[in-house]
Protein backbone atom coordinates (compact mmCIF):
# COMPACT_ATOMS: atom_id res chain seq x y z
CA UNK A 1 0.00 0.00 0.00
CA UNK A 2 1.84 3.14 1.07
CA UNK A 3 5.35 1.92 1.49
CA UNK A 4 6.89 5.25 2.37
CA UNK A 5 4.92 6.05 5.51
CA UNK A 6 6.15 5.31 8.97
CA UNK A 7 2.89 3.69 9.95
CA UNK A 8 2.39 0.24 8.61
CA UNK A 9 -1.33 0.18 8.59
CA UNK A 10 -1.67 -2.84 6.36
CA UNK A 11 -1.31 -5.15 9.30
CA UNK A 12 -4.09 -3.36 11.10
CA UNK A 13 -6.46 -4.17 8.29
CA UNK A 14 -7.20 -0.51 7.65
CA UNK A 15 -6.28 1.61 4.67
CA UNK A 16 -3.38 4.00 4.88
CA UNK A 17 -5.59 7.09 4.86
CA UNK A 18 -6.73 6.73 8.40
CA UNK A 19 -4.80 7.73 11.46
CA UNK A 20 -5.97 8.48 14.93
CA UNK A 21 -6.11 12.03 16.18
CA UNK A 22 -3.36 12.86 18.60
CA UNK A 23 -1.46 9.61 18.54
CA UNK A 24 -0.43 7.34 15.75
CA UNK A 25 -1.70 3.84 15.89
CA UNK A 26 1.55 2.06 15.34
CA UNK A 27 1.66 -1.62 15.80
CA UNK A 28 4.54 -3.79 14.76
CA UNK A 29 2.92 -7.12 15.14
CA UNK A 30 5.25 -10.04 15.16
CA UNK A 31 2.63 -12.27 13.66
CA UNK A 32 -0.31 -11.83 11.41
CA UNK A 33 -2.98 -12.68 13.90
CA UNK A 34 -2.29 -15.07 16.59
CA UNK A 35 -2.74 -18.31 14.76
CA UNK A 36 1.00 -18.62 14.92
CA UNK A 37 1.16 -17.70 18.55
CA UNK A 38 0.99 -21.18 19.94
CA UNK A 39 3.23 -22.56 17.27
CA UNK A 40 6.14 -20.57 18.58
CA UNK A 41 5.85 -21.93 22.07
CA UNK A 42 8.65 -24.34 22.60
CA UNK A 43 9.73 -26.50 25.48
CA UNK A 44 11.30 -23.88 27.67
CA UNK A 45 8.07 -21.88 27.85
CA UNK A 46 10.00 -18.66 28.04
CA UNK A 47 7.99 -15.47 28.11
CA UNK A 48 10.58 -13.68 26.07
CA UNK A 49 9.22 -14.90 22.79
CA UNK A 50 6.30 -12.53 22.82
CA UNK A 51 5.47 -9.16 24.28
CA UNK A 52 2.73 -8.85 26.83
CA UNK A 53 0.67 -6.52 24.72
CA UNK A 54 0.54 -9.06 21.93
CA UNK A 55 -1.33 -11.75 23.81
CA UNK A 56 -4.74 -12.00 22.24
CA UNK A 57 -7.47 -14.57 22.08
CA UNK A 58 -7.85 -16.23 18.68
CA UNK A 59 -9.66 -13.92 16.35
CA UNK A 60 -11.80 -16.71 14.93
CA UNK A 61 -13.32 -17.41 18.33
CA UNK A 62 -13.86 -13.75 19.05
CA UNK A 63 -15.42 -13.17 15.63
CA UNK A 64 -17.74 -16.11 16.09
CA UNK A 65 -19.03 -14.81 19.39
CA UNK A 66 -19.59 -11.39 17.87
CA UNK A 67 -21.40 -12.84 14.92
CA UNK A 68 -23.73 -14.81 17.12
CA UNK A 69 -24.49 -11.77 19.22
CA UNK A 70 -25.65 -9.46 16.47
CA UNK A 71 -28.69 -10.02 14.26
CA UNK A 72 -28.14 -12.62 11.60
CA UNK A 73 -28.24 -10.16 8.73
CA UNK A 74 -25.48 -8.06 10.21
CA UNK A 75 -21.87 -7.99 9.09
CA UNK A 76 -18.68 -7.17 10.90
CA UNK A 77 -15.82 -5.15 9.49
CA UNK A 78 -12.42 -6.75 9.67
CA UNK A 79 -10.88 -3.96 11.67
CA UNK A 80 -13.79 -4.20 14.10
CA UNK A 81 -12.96 -7.85 14.77
CA UNK A 82 -9.31 -7.08 15.36
CA UNK A 83 -10.25 -4.21 17.57
CA UNK A 84 -12.55 -6.30 19.74
CA UNK A 85 -9.76 -8.84 19.99
CA UNK A 86 -7.63 -6.15 21.62
CA UNK A 87 -10.51 -4.98 23.79
CA UNK A 88 -10.88 -8.50 25.07
CA UNK A 89 -7.30 -8.66 26.25
CA UNK A 90 -7.77 -5.28 27.86
CA UNK A 91 -10.92 -6.50 29.58
CA UNK A 92 -9.22 -9.58 30.98
CA UNK A 93 -6.28 -7.56 32.25
CA UNK A 94 -8.65 -5.02 33.78
CA UNK A 95 -10.69 -7.63 35.61
CA UNK A 96 -7.58 -9.45 36.76
CA UNK A 97 -5.91 -6.37 38.17
CA UNK A 98 -9.08 -5.27 39.95
CA UNK A 99 -9.55 -8.70 41.49
CA UNK A 100 -5.90 -8.91 42.43
CA UNK A 101 -6.12 -5.55 44.15
CA UNK A 102 -9.15 -6.55 46.17
CA UNK A 103 -7.49 -9.79 46.99
CA UNK A 104 -4.64 -7.90 48.59
CA UNK A 105 -6.95 -5.55 50.40
CA UNK A 106 -9.07 -8.24 51.94
CA UNK A 107 -6.26 -10.28 53.43
CA UNK A 108 -3.16 -8.15 53.70
CA UNK A 109 0.02 -10.14 54.17
CA UNK A 110 -1.57 -13.53 53.85
CA UNK A 111 -1.40 -13.71 50.10
CA UNK A 112 1.58 -11.60 49.15
CA UNK A 113 1.90 -13.19 45.73
CA UNK A 114 -1.55 -12.19 44.62
CA UNK A 115 -3.06 -15.62 44.85
CA UNK A 116 -6.62 -15.64 43.70
CA UNK A 117 -8.12 -18.27 45.97
CA UNK A 118 -11.72 -19.24 46.38
CA UNK A 119 -12.12 -16.15 48.54
CA UNK A 120 -10.45 -14.18 45.82
CA UNK A 121 -12.92 -15.64 43.45
CA UNK A 122 -15.69 -14.04 45.42
CA UNK A 123 -13.89 -10.78 45.09
CA UNK A 124 -13.60 -11.47 41.44
CA UNK A 125 -17.32 -11.91 41.17
CA UNK A 126 -17.95 -8.68 43.05
CA UNK A 127 -15.86 -6.83 40.54
CA UNK A 128 -17.94 -8.21 37.75
CA UNK A 129 -21.21 -7.18 39.24
CA UNK A 130 -20.14 -3.68 40.08
CA UNK A 131 -18.66 -3.02 36.69
CA UNK A 132 -20.98 -4.97 34.50
CA UNK A 133 -24.33 -4.99 36.14
CA UNK A 134 -26.03 -4.67 32.85
CA UNK A 135 -24.93 -8.08 31.76
CA UNK A 136 -27.59 -10.33 33.25
CA UNK A 137 -25.53 -13.45 32.61
CA UNK A 138 -22.82 -12.30 34.96
CA UNK A 139 -25.30 -11.51 37.69
CA UNK A 140 -26.53 -15.05 37.41
CA UNK A 141 -23.05 -16.39 37.75
CA UNK A 142 -22.73 -14.45 40.95
CA UNK A 143 -25.72 -16.14 42.45
CA UNK A 144 -24.73 -19.63 41.46
Amino acid at each position, binding site marked *: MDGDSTTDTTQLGITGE*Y*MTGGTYVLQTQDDDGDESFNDHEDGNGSKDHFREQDIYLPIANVARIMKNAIPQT*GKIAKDAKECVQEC*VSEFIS*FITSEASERCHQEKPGQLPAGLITADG*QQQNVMVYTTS*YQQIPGIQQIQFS
Partner: protein
Amino acid sequence: MSGKNMEEKVEQATDRKNISLPMSRVRLIMKSSPDVSCINQDALFLTTKATELFVQHLALSSYKNGSGKETNTLSYSDLANAAEESETFQFLTDILPKKILAREYLKSLEEMEKVDDNL
Protein backbone atom coordinates in the same frame (compact mmCIF):
# COMPACT_ATOMS: atom_id res chain seq x y z
CA MET B 1 -39.17 -14.43 34.21
CA SER B 2 -40.05 -17.57 36.10
CA GLY B 3 -37.73 -19.03 38.68
CA LYS B 4 -37.15 -22.14 36.65
CA ASN B 5 -36.14 -20.17 33.61
CA MET B 6 -33.55 -18.35 35.67
CA GLU B 7 -32.25 -21.63 36.97
CA GLU B 8 -31.81 -22.96 33.49
CA LYS B 9 -29.98 -19.84 32.44
CA VAL B 10 -27.65 -20.07 35.40
CA GLU B 11 -26.96 -23.67 34.63
CA GLN B 12 -26.27 -22.89 31.05
CA ALA B 13 -24.02 -20.03 31.98
CA THR B 14 -21.96 -22.14 34.35
CA ASP B 15 -21.77 -25.27 32.26
CA ARG B 16 -18.11 -25.80 31.67
CA LYS B 17 -18.60 -27.21 28.23
CA ASN B 18 -20.45 -24.12 27.13
CA ILE B 19 -17.51 -21.80 26.51
CA SER B 20 -15.93 -21.02 23.18
CA LEU B 21 -12.73 -19.32 24.25
CA PRO B 22 -9.48 -21.11 25.07
CA MET B 23 -8.97 -20.96 28.82
CA SER B 24 -5.24 -21.51 28.47
CA ARG B 25 -4.93 -18.31 26.51
CA VAL B 26 -7.12 -16.41 28.96
CA ARG B 27 -4.86 -17.66 31.71
CA LEU B 28 -1.81 -16.33 29.90
CA ILE B 29 -3.33 -12.88 29.65
CA MET B 30 -4.26 -12.96 33.33
CA LYS B 31 -0.75 -13.93 34.28
CA SER B 32 0.65 -10.95 32.45
CA SER B 33 -0.83 -8.79 35.19
CA PRO B 34 1.65 -7.86 37.89
CA ASP B 35 1.31 -9.50 41.30
CA VAL B 36 -0.59 -12.48 39.98
CA SER B 37 1.02 -15.84 40.50
CA CYS B 38 -1.57 -18.57 40.87
CA ILE B 39 -5.05 -18.54 39.49
CA ASN B 40 -7.86 -20.54 40.97
CA GLN B 41 -9.49 -22.77 38.40
CA ASP B 42 -12.96 -21.43 39.10
CA ALA B 43 -11.76 -17.87 38.83
CA LEU B 44 -10.27 -18.73 35.45
CA PHE B 45 -13.51 -20.24 34.25
CA LEU B 46 -15.42 -17.24 35.53
CA THR B 47 -13.12 -14.86 33.74
CA THR B 48 -13.42 -16.79 30.50
CA LYS B 49 -17.18 -16.88 30.72
CA ALA B 50 -17.37 -13.20 31.59
CA THR B 51 -15.12 -12.41 28.63
CA GLU B 52 -17.51 -14.20 26.35
CA LEU B 53 -20.41 -12.21 27.70
CA PHE B 54 -18.35 -9.07 27.36
CA VAL B 55 -17.76 -9.71 23.67
CA GLN B 56 -21.45 -10.28 23.11
CA HIS B 57 -22.38 -7.16 25.04
CA LEU B 58 -19.82 -4.98 23.26
CA ALA B 59 -20.71 -6.28 19.83
CA LEU B 60 -24.44 -5.93 20.28
CA SER B 61 -24.33 -2.51 21.95
CA SER B 62 -22.03 -1.11 19.30
CA TYR B 63 -24.07 -2.63 16.52
CA LYS B 64 -27.34 -1.24 17.85
CA ASN B 65 -25.79 2.15 18.24
CA GLY B 66 -24.60 2.26 14.66
CA SER B 67 -27.22 0.37 12.71
CA GLY B 68 -29.51 3.36 12.64
CA LYS B 69 -27.56 4.43 9.60
CA GLU B 70 -28.62 1.24 7.83
CA THR B 71 -25.05 0.21 7.30
CA ASN B 72 -25.81 -3.25 8.61
CA THR B 73 -22.12 -3.56 9.30
CA LEU B 74 -20.42 -3.28 12.64
CA SER B 75 -17.49 -0.99 12.06
CA TYR B 76 -14.57 0.27 14.12
CA SER B 77 -16.22 3.66 14.61
CA ASP B 78 -19.27 1.98 16.14
CA LEU B 79 -16.98 0.49 18.75
CA ALA B 80 -15.17 3.77 19.34
CA ASN B 81 -18.50 5.51 19.84
CA ALA B 82 -19.65 2.87 22.28
CA ALA B 83 -16.48 3.30 24.30
CA GLU B 84 -17.01 7.01 24.52
CA GLU B 85 -20.72 7.05 25.22
CA SER B 86 -21.22 4.12 27.54
CA GLU B 87 -19.99 4.12 31.10
CA THR B 88 -19.51 0.38 31.00
CA PHE B 89 -16.98 0.64 28.21
CA GLN B 90 -15.14 3.67 29.49
CA PHE B 91 -12.03 1.66 30.21
CA LEU B 92 -11.66 1.04 26.48
CA THR B 93 -11.34 4.67 25.43
CA ASP B 94 -7.56 4.54 25.44
CA ILE B 95 -7.37 1.68 23.00
CA LEU B 96 -10.31 2.77 20.88
CA PRO B 97 -9.41 6.25 19.78
CA LYS B 98 -11.57 7.75 17.11
CA LYS B 99 -9.98 7.85 13.74
CA ILE B 100 -9.69 10.84 11.49
CA LEU B 101 -8.57 11.11 7.93
CA ALA B 102 -4.87 11.75 7.53
CA ARG B 103 -5.40 14.88 5.51
CA GLU B 104 -7.63 16.32 8.22
CA TYR B 105 -4.98 15.61 10.81
CA LEU B 106 -2.28 17.21 8.70
CA LYS B 107 -4.51 20.20 8.14
CA SER B 108 -5.08 20.66 11.84
CA LEU B 109 -1.33 20.31 12.38
CA GLU B 110 -0.74 23.12 9.94
CA GLU B 111 -3.29 25.26 11.68
CA MET B 112 -1.65 24.64 15.02
CA GLU B 113 1.67 25.72 13.59
CA LYS B 114 0.11 28.88 12.29
CA VAL B 115 -1.20 29.65 15.74
CA ASP B 116 2.26 29.10 17.17
CA ASP B 117 3.75 31.43 14.59
CA ASN B 118 1.31 34.14 15.50
CA LEU B 119 2.13 34.02 19.18
